[in-house]
């Protein structure tokens, strides 16, 4: 007899006829400041889930600590709100051991680019099939306005009141420099269509999809992206049939550059050149090895394991 729901064995539940609406993924009301860019990312993620009909129970949002890392709390899925900078190792553990789950990692710029920088580089190299969102507001929000690695030079904060000393780090350039990077994109939360299209492409990508989301923090960085929001021409859209195309934005965002996302060298040049804010898919290569597949193993029963273990013990027999 086949057990009707032998879910212990991860059999797909065929009579699951649930249809999910965006609202099904909504958790409690988000507690970010009004006008905070994180709200639109949340909406885009819920829209993506509905679009893809992802099951809430097999979707895991993992985050670190920061304003942005509250994200999982506001989703009606499984969520793991861990410790500062360490979303990616946890997400790695989840995906590596349960590849059938859909895994999203949500990080702030302090989280990913500063305290978690080592993990970010290595997660890029592992290339597990997950979406990594860097919600980059160029500041430490939760801890109230300290300089972050992406803060523009000269920008005043509570820790560097005379202006930040260092050149900001460029997360796109850094990710594109890592061996085995397989998907690198940039979007802006104030362009919902582009944001959604980018999340969708990231989800569809088989591998580690790194998305830097330019995010407004009206509370601590009120003028950071004001010009860019007001002046669409400051934004240059990377356009290509193989890239990310957001329907309906072409009327406003006319400044485009053709860029083939298979071209890594050009992607690096475009990322490095900071004269424009570029949105779109910088690079994608689905042929890169994925860690969870490299490490996929045959499952053994308890009995088989004990037989094998007995053989291993034989080698130590006195």
């Amino acid at each position, binding site marked *: 007899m086949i057990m009707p729901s032998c879910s212990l064995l991860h059999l797909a539940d065929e009579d699951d006829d649930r249809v999910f609406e965006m609202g099904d993924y909504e958790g409690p009301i988000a507690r970010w400041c009004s006008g905070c860019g994180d709200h639109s990312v949340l909406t885009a993620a819920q829209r993506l889930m509905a679009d893809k009909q992802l099951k809430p129970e097999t979707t895991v949002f993992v985050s670190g600590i920061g304003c942005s890392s509250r994200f999982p709390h506001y989703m009606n899925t499984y969520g793991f*709100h861990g410790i500062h900078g360490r979303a990616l*190792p946890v997400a790695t553990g989840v995906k590596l051991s349960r590849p059938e789950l859909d895994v999203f990692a949500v990080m702030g710029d302090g989280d990913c680019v500063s305290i978690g920088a*080592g993990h970010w580089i290595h997660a890029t190299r592992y290339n597990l099939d997950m979406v990594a969102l860097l919600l980059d507001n160029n500041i430490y929000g939760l801890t109230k306005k300290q300089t972050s690695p992406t803060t523009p030079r000269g920008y005043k904060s509570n820790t560097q009141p005379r202006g930040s000393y260092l050149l900001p780090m460029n997360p796109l350039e850094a990710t594109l420099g890592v061996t085995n990077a397989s998907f690198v994109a940039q979007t802006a939360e104030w362009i919902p269509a582009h944001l959604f299209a980018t999340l969708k492409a990231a989800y569809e990508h088989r591998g580690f999809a790194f998305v830097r989301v330019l995010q407004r923090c009206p509370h601590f960085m009120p003028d950071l992206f004001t010009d860019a929001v007001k002046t669409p021409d400051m934004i240059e859209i990377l356009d290509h049939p193989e890239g990310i195309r957001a329907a309906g934005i072409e009327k406003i965002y006319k400044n485009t550059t053709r860029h083939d996302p298979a071209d890594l060298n050009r992607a690096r040049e475009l990322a490095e050149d900071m004269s424009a804010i570029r949105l779109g898919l910088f690079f994608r290569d689905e042929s890169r090895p994925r860690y969870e597949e490299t490490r996929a193993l045959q499952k053994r029963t308890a009995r088989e394991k004990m037989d094998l273990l007995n053989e291993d013990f034989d080698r130590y027999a006195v």
Partner: protein
Amino acid sequence: MKLETAGASALAEKEMSVHTVSDISVEVVSDSGEGAQKCGTIFGSVSAKMGNGVWTVEIIPAEVEPPPRNPAGASGIRIRLGDKEVTNWGDETNVIVAFNEQALLGRHDLNALADDAVILLENMWATHPDPAVRKEWEDAMERLSHRSYRIIEVPMEEQCLTVVDNARKGKNMFALGLLTWLFDRDLERTKEQIAFAFRTKKPIITENNIKLLELGYSWAEENLDVRYVVPGMEAAGPMVVMNGNEAIALGAVAAGLDLAAMYPITPATSVSHKLGEIFEKYGGVLHQAEDEIAAAGVAIGASYAGKCTFTITSGPGMALKTEFLGLAVMTEIPLVLVNVQRGGPSTGLPTKVEQSDLLAATYGQPGDAPHVVMAPATIGECFDIMTTARRIAEALRTVVIVLSDANLATGVAPFPRPELSPEWQAGPPDQRPIPAGAKPYDWDPETGLSRRFIPGQAGGEHTLTGLAHDERSKVAYDSDTVQRSMTMRSRKLAVFQSTLLPPEINGDPEGGDLLIVGWGSTKGAIEEAVGRARKEGLSVSSTHLTFLSPLQPGLKEIFGRFEKVMTVEINYSDIVGDPYITPENRRYGQLAMMLRAQTLVDVDCWTRVLGEPLRPGKILQAIRQHMPGGEA
């Protein structure tokens, strides 16, 4: 010191002396890369097969290839044989084979050699073309002459060159031949063991090694006049022989662990070497992370996803994992952490034993993070403890820290072969839907225990958080929730403690003058010392704790049966009588501190950090000195 040259007339008309001994320690020392350890391992295995109790421990210099002929670079192995079970590395070495006089000096300098040690010493250095080497030899002989060692010169190089071109790659098997004759080991068994040890190499290697073995054997037969007999025991049942790290690796498999995440660190790494070799065939993943923090994170992520996982490290790595340990405790994710302790603080003594991480393991996480700390005392327990630890971690939904150490990690000894049970394995992650209304932390108000939700379980969607939270995993900072959730996480330990048994007493359970309390790898040495002290008529007993946090029950009552209680540990404590040390500022050994706090008994301690396992003889001396009314 008696210096004898091989083949000299003193040995010509041999008058054999045969000593039957119940306990003897043998060492083989060389420059690193000369295979002393291989020689000792084979000798130990053959001895175990012949029914002897055996404990072998490697002597490892800190560098991979230290400069040759250097006392600090001595690399080798000690093999202690007995006519009964051997539980520790013993005191001093009675017989030593040295490939050069500097390695020998290294052992002499550490007081590793018995005063009447018999030394078989390669003599090529005495006539070396380089005058500096000859001078070193002479100086060494002068220094060694102040002890009553018996040094027998052996032309190892000259002999080995009759079989191989490069004697550096052959002396170890020649030395094995010497020992095989000296201890009357079964030559055939030794050959089999050689064939096994080199099974993956070209057949010519085994052939040459056997020739060298026979050469050493017959050289000894012709030239040596002393032999030792260590009677064997009847085998009680099937035995296996391995080191503690191999036992942990096999234990992890037996426990059904699916994933081990680690970052290389001595002396824990060899667990992962073993797992690297065998784990995949069981479907297990050994994940070498980018650092210890990530290793902990990956293990926690996989455990959260329903797998059985552990992370393995040593002290400095455990320090890096502390924040994640706190998270696992807070979010009630089961996790086993194995810390194979080494000498500290900081990089400390990477290859040497210490028990200095007890307090860090127990209290070292930020905030109040109640969890379990336990320690294996024997190599066999290194195997068993993995299953125990996993089960506790899952039953309590918390962290279990297992404290092994370099002594267990590198010590090799036989233990009864475990009878494996498939029941030790865990089932696949529970994927049944969660009934409506169930909460992710449905704390039983009595016990604090609750069922966990695993991704994939429909209806169980929630966000787990390291922030203070209520039963529904909602962030909650109100006084009532904070106090209650802390109580629930802590209560689990009390519940667990109520299931534990008081520790057993070795010696006199009725009580007496002195009770020694130990934990971890020192058990064998402590019990041996207590046994010897009791033979001397001293009223001393010992007890050994497997659970350090929570502590096993009944301690205060047990302590009350003894006039004095003292811990013996390998960590630092101030010595009474040292400058500035007063009863007010004296720093106690780490277990002593915990016992004093928990029992309010005035527990004393004798602890030393000597960069080596405690010798039973030294513990015996400490017992004599610390008997109530004694000098200390």
